[in-house]
């Protein structure tokens, strides 16, 4: 019986899904699902290799709390928020919809990736 328990435990470990997003990934889904698009995944890790936090959180005006920013596609196309770089000059332009709108449909908005506290705040 004892042995069976150990085998069961090992099997659980083996079958346990290991999927988790990267630390600091943010899912944006205020409107995407409603409008028939996949939600957006914003990977902090990718961006911080290329830009310091202050570029987006100071120059571009992104508030430092997931959910606090109201980002509309029309603003991005006008060169605000993501559109400051995603303009076909620094990074791909807003016509490459699927590269940002890349989450599984109905993924809830918020910060994902195994943040180990209840941060980033109540929002």
């Amino acid at each position, binding site marked *: 019986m004892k042995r069976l328990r150990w085998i069961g435990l090992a099997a659980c470990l083996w079958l346990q899904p290991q999927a988790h997003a990267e630390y600091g990934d943010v899912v944006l889904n205020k409107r995407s699902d409603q409008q028939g698009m996949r939600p957006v995944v914003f990977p902090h890790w990718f961006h911080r290799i290329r830009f310091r936090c202050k*570029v987006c959180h100071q120059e571009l005006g992104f508030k430092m709390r997931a959910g606090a920013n109201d980002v509309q596609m029309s603003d991005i196309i006008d060169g605000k928020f993501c559109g400051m770089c995603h303009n076909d000059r620094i990074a791909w332009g807003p016509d490459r919809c699927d590269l940002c709108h890349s989450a599984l449909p109905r993924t809830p908005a918020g910060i994902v990736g195994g943040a180990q506290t209840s*941060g980033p705040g109540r929002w």
Partner: protein
Amino acid sequence: MKPLRRRPGRWLAAALVLLTAAALAATSLWTRLEKDGVHDPLGPAIGVLQQPGEALESLPRDSAGNQVNWVKAIDSGAINPRTNILPETKVRVPDKDMIIARYGSMPAVKFPHRQHTLWLDCANCHDHLFKAEAGANRFSMMAILNGEQCGLCHGAVAFPLTECNRCHSVSNASLPPRTAR
């Protein structure tokens, strides 16, 4: 009779343990996008977007978060992320160390401005999160764990709050007794 009957179970257990160990050893520190539970594995972005492992593998290693020591990544020259996009932006990098001591059971906190201004601008924290005056702020671990104050970044994108000693790093005994708060 007895040992023979026991063997199949033992072999099965050993095989499972070995398989698990092999699986763990083969697992990269970073999950591939199509398997991360967030990206749509059938979406057209998979195959175009950079994989985390590809980008992060060569950076200085850490034991938490993205498994990358991001400050060391800049200091060592492994990366040199842009500081500004607008040419007129003033890049401010004050570097004063602040000691926050309450002489409790935990070591005092050293807040190094340098490691923060390497990434952030003064206005990201001052003055809406912290007054720019030593001793003028009330810190609370409850608030921080709730994602306020330091917890706005630490626990979300900066190293997590399980890394107590990285902030609580100054022995109270090494400080002048009960001077500043």
